Every structure is written in C-alpha cells, then in structure tokens.
C-alpha cells in the first residue's frame, strides 16, 4: 500500500522558485499568529539567505470576502491584479501568498485568465480604469509552506532540536493538516496533490517525526467561511473540527501541524470550546493537543524563543510539547509585552487545563 501511495504522490510535484520573492501577507495570520509571519521572513533571510520583500502598500486579497460571497469575482480578480502590479513595482516575479485561502484565490484567478483570455483583458481594463496601473502575471506562485518544504534539508542542518522525545528517543507522532484550498482546488499546484498531501509530511519526516495517517486526515477543519463568520452558523465549524479530533484521538498525537491560518486557529480554539461545552479533551491530561504552524515548528527546532514565535497566543498551551523535545524556555518571559513589561495573564478556562495561573 505504501508503494502505491509513494508512486502517486510523486506525480504531484511543483516548481517552487529558488529566490527573490514578493511576500503577500495574510489577514488571519497577521491578526492571530503574527509571530509566524515574522519567523518565516527571518528564516528566509537569516537562515537561507534569500531575498523576500514585505511591501507596505499591500492589502487583503479579499479571499475571505470572496468565499463568503460578499465580494464579486471581478472585484477579486482586479484586487489580485493590483497586488501583482505591486510585485512588478518591486521588479519581482515570484509571488508568495502567506495564506492558504489567498494561495487558492491567486491560483484560481491565474487559471481563469489562462483558460479565458477575455477575463484577463477585462481585469486589465478594470485595473487601468480604477488605478492607472498595469501588471504582469507572476512566473511562480508558491505558498510559504512550499518554500520551507523545498529547503527542509538545508534547515535541518541548522536545527538544534529534532522531532524526537529527548527522554525516550522515539519520534514524536504528528497529525498534519493541510488547508483545503492548498490542494483541493488545483491539485497540480500542491506538493503531493489533494490525495497525498506531502508538503507538511515531508517536513515532519525530515525533521525526525512520524506522520499519523488517520481516517479523517483530509477532512476540512470546519472554517466554512460564512459558517464561522456568522455566529448562528458556528455549529457547522465546531462539528467538523470535532469530527477530526475524534478520528485522530486514538492515535495519540503529540501535536498537530498545519499550513493554513484558519485551520491553525480553529483546531486550537475549538478544542477549548469543545472542552467547555462537553468536558471533553482529546489528550490524556486534559490540556488539549497543541496546534502549531510550520514556521513555529521550524523556529522551535532552530532554537528560537517560543515566546517570540508566539506560542503564548494559542489557547492550547505548548509547554508539554517543548518538554518532550527538550526545548529550554523561560516561563517568566511568556507574558512579557513589547515594552518589556509584564502585561498580565489570561483568565483560566473552566475545563481546559493550562500552564498559567490566571
């Protein structure tokens, strides 16, 4: 069976540019996990010596509005065209959208233009009329997780830690969750395609961990756009996350690794909600299963301070994972703000256990 899987996913490779990237930031990641975007830029510049531009003139791709159907497709195409125009202003050709929803949107827009040239011409006309701008289609669109995957071996050489329990010497067991819009819309733009997602699995295996293959591995995290954005619909969102955690529970994962901002947030927050609603957690200690971004994981293994990466802004706390890997950390530094002052401690949930005494 393994042979068949390897055969199939090897057919889904993609071209990932080597250097000179335009970074398009994510609304959700900037808000919920800004440390992950900071870590990505630091890893590319300081560890890999790459050029990547973080442009102050950029803005949302409208992806969340587009998939909740409040933004027209013509509008989204033209907003994407403006962002491509900004990339051209910086004399770059390789576009790197931080968000998986954005990655899907940019890919859909470019595929549409390739198949329907009249849509491209319409977009050029709209952009010109609105802003006087022209744009070029990127030569390469890669998600940041593609780039970390591409350089996973080089990064391993610099890592201080491995995905191994430092007391037992056994590989950590990891659930990987790739965002739906990474591979399900255009599988040929995803490492491993939609069926055999390899982008995160490749990092986990290279860095010493073991990937858990569980029944609902490919099921959506439950974001559902309007199904979360509107309070009345959030049952949909939490029900889907619950389905995934029930499916993975018996495999006892040490943590969950994601490449999508929404997935990271929902799989983290809904564990709190499920615990408070039903008294249920999916680990043995009542603390939940930590959910990490791939930049947080890379940063931890490279020896970055967990509290500079932002692990304290996750609801499910990660000290148990740090202890397993043997990562040293300073508990007193966890709730220190930019000013260097202690800024207080979050309240404690009623059911979900945490490492702080708020």
């Amino acid at each position, binding site marked *: 069976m393994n042979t068949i899987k390897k055969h199939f996913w090897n057919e889904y490779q993609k071209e990932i540019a080597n250097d000179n990237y335009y970074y398009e930031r994510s609304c959700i990641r900037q*808000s919920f996990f800004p440390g992950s975007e900071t870590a990505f830029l630091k890893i590319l510049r300081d560890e890999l010596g790459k050029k990547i531009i973080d442009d102050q003139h950029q*803005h949302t791709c409208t992806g969340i509005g587009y998939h909740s159907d409040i933004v*027209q497709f013509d509008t989204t195409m033209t907003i994407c065209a403006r962002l491509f125009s900004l990339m051209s202003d910086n004399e770059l050709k390789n576009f790197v959208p931080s968000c998986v929803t954005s990655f899907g949107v940019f890919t859909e827009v470019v595929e549409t233009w390739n198949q329907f040239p009249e849509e491209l011409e319409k977009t050029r006309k709209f952009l010109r009329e609105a802003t006087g701008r022209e744009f070029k289609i990127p030569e390469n669109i890669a998600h940041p997780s593609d780039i970390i995957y591409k350089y996973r071996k080089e990064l391993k050489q610099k890592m201080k830690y491995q995905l191994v329990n430092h007391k037992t010497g056994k590989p950590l067991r990891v659930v990987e969750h790739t965002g*739906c819009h990474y591979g399900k819309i255009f599988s040929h733009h995803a490492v491993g395609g939609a069926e055999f997602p390899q982008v995160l699995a490749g990092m986990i295996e290279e860095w010493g961990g073991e990937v858990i293959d569980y029944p609902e591995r490919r099921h959506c995290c439950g974001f559902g756009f309007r199904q979360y954005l509107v309070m*009345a619909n959030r049952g949909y969102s939490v029900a889907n996350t619950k389905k995934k955690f029930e499916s993975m529970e018996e495999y006892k994962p040490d943590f969950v690794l994601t490449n999508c901002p929404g997935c990271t947030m929902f799989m983290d*927050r809904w564990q*709190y*909600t499920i615990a408070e609603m039903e008294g249920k957690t999916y680990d043995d200690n009542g603390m939940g299963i930590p959910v990490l971004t791939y930049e947080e994981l890379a940063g931890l293994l490279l020896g970055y301070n967990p509290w500079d990466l932002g692990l304290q802004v996750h609801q499910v706390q990660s000290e148990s994972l740090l202890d397993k890997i043997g990562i040293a950390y300073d508990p007193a530094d966890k709730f220190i703000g930019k000013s260097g002052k202690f800024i*207080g401690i979050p*309240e404690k949930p009623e059911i979900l256990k945490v490492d702080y005494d708020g």
Partner: protein
Amino acid sequence: MNTFVETIKYSMKNYYELLSTDVRFCEGLTACMNCGVCTAICPAAEFYKYDPRQICNTVQTRDDDQIEALLKSDTIWYCGQCMSCKARCPRGNVPAMVISVLRRFSQELGFFTESEKGRQQFAVKRTVGDNIINTGYCVHIDSVTPKLHPEQGPVWKWYYENAEEVADRLGANYNKEGGGALRKISKENLDEVKKIFDVTGGTALYEQVEDSSKVQAKLMKLGFDDVGTNNEYFFHTYIENSENHQK
C-alpha cells in the same frame, strides 16, 4: 428596484442563461451525471439538510421556477466552500463554484432576504465587507471582539486587550504607519481598493445587500442603522438560528 437589478432583469431571458454569464458557472458545471460523490465528501451535507448533487440536478433542469426557488432558499447558503467536491468529482465539475454563482445572483436579484441563511449576508457585509473598505483587511484583531467571538477563549481576550504589546512583541507594527504585520494601511492604498470596488461591481453588490436588507428590516419591524453592527437587524441576522437546518 435599483438600476443594477433592473439591468440584470431586463437583459436576461431565463435564469440558466443568467447563470451562464458567469465564467465560473461555465467552468463549474459541464456534464453532471448526478453520481453523488460531491455529496458523499461534503462536510456541509453531513451537517445540514443539504445535497450538492441535487443542486446540480435542479440547475441542469433549466427550469425557471425551480431555479428561482433555489435562489430564494436557505439551501444555497449551507456550502462551506471547502472545495472538496472539486477534488473528487469524476467529471471535473465544481458544485461549490456553482453555489457561488447562485449566491451572487441571489444577492443581485434581491432574493437573498427571503431565507434566514440568505439574510445573513447583511452580517457578512457589515463585518468582513466593511473591514475590507475601511481597513484593507478582511479580518483584523480589532474586529474580532470577544463579545462577538466568545468561542475564541480567554487567551484571545487577553491578546485582544493587550493587542499592541503582544502583537508588536511578535514582530508586528500594530496600527502604525510603515510596513509589517497589522500596519495601518495608508489612505492612498485604501483609495485604490475602493476604486477597484467601484469599477468592478463590488460597491454595487454592497449597495444591493444594504438596500434589500433595509427593506427586509422594515418588513420584520427590526431596528436598522445605515452603518455599523450595533443595531437590531444586524444582531438578528448574526445570531438568529431557527434550528431548522440540520438533518
């Protein structure tokens, strides 16, 4: 009726032809054989009384009465846009994309206010829709208030209340000029975003959602303000759940 809707209604011959004017409809539905793989894989079909296979079937009938009923129904608003159907359809159809086109015209024709789930588009417009124009972000820390998002938990509340201290420690440039995460997006850039909305029909859609919702609020005798989220109709569309949607 606004000019936008009048133009659409005047120029179309039937609903199927109207749907076909959107390139995503042409791409999303070519030859559905109604096998039901989309429904088998669909997270929404598991949760709601929802069947994407049936939606494709209804659209393919080209029957005006059936399509209009769909445009006025809760059904088209159940999809979560995960696009799992795209990955699985043996014929390369994309029911989620067909849904997007149905939702577009449900709003443009003013039909969305006739269903509970459709009316929620007003809440989406007043949150994500207005965020884009006012801030340049779909979602921003400041818009995810603990009051509207209790499920975010106590760590989020702590983060929200100490946003600048926490975000800037993590490398952000919270609400300030210049570059970086969570920077304040300049007026020059926001103006170009707004102009793009104006010329592409994005602003017209917002206005249609606002106008239809105002009429609906009056019909339902609910308070309505022209801006913001602090009004009776907003909370009605944001919170109301008749509990009549699940299997």
